[in-house]
């Protein structure tokens, strides 16, 4: 029997066809496998970040903990100072004009009272004139 003829004879025998129903099943399973793989890769990404961080921090954990504590202290101090800042600012605000007028009236009254008791002994302190805008209404109309 001729060699080539034999080979050709064998080649002509058709092979069994892959069952049609396998296509859906195999592709569905493969698609599911791809989804599982993607999820695993995402999880691996997160865990690798954690492992990288721990690799960085692991050699000197106390030093890193100390550094973290310092930063926490700095943030705490900064935050508390921010909270107090408005109160401090309020403390150093100039008193309102009414208060100043009232105080000066009190002073004047005190001087007058002292003056009536010890006439000629001491002269009442000379008050500086108030700006027109700060003078009480009675003063302006008198």
């Amino acid at each position: 029997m001729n060699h080539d003829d034999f080979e050709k004879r064998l080649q002509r025998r058709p092979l069994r066809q892959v069952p049609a129903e396998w296509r859906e099943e195999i592709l569905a399973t493969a698609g599911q496998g791809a989804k599982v793989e993607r999820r695993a890769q995402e999880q691996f990404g997160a865990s690798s970040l954690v492992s990288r961080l721990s690799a960085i921090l692991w050699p000197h954990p106390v030093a890193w903990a100390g550094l973290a504590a310092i930063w926490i202290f700095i943030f705490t101090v900064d935050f508390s100072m921010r909270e107090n800042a408005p109160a401090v600012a309020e403390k150093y605000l100039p008193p309102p004009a009414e208060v100043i007028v009232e105080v000066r009236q009190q002073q004047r009254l005190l001087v007058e009272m002292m003056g009536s008791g010890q006439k000629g002994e001491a002269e009442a302190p000379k008050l500086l004139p108030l700006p027109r805008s700060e003078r009480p209404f009675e003063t302006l109309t008198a």
Partner: protein
Amino acid sequence: MRREPELERLYDEHAQSLYAFLLNFTRDKSDTHDLLQEVFVKLARQPELLGGVRDERAFLIRLAHNAAIDLIRRRGTRERVKDNFAAETISSFALANDPDEQAFRTGLAGALAELPPDQRAVVHLKLWEGLTFEQIAAALDIPQNTAASRYRYGLDKLRDRLRPLYEEIK
């Protein structure tokens, strides 16, 4: 479920070849199904595997062959027992209406089953896939000369085994 278009293309273009190769190699429909599925699951999970591959068919046959070898190794003794009962296994050839032709195909399937798996794989790829020895060598990860010699040995055995049938239907 969302499908991968690239995977569908690969299936449509290569599943038939892989099926025939695996069926000829394992001679078991269930194993062939599992192995074919294993190949496509692997491709779905690692699409980068095909990056830079020149000959898709040869590459996929290599994946399928490796999966089949792994399966045989896992099975060990059980697979060797199955080899002794080749008559019970499925033929990789389509059924024929003509009884003489069907007898020849059955005989051919039986003769192939008697070949060692390595020779059977090379003979299948050369005769029914039309691959060159270079492609077969790449697919099965063997030297080209080894592929050629396995083919010659395998073909001689088939000829001896099939001579009576061949002469009869010639």
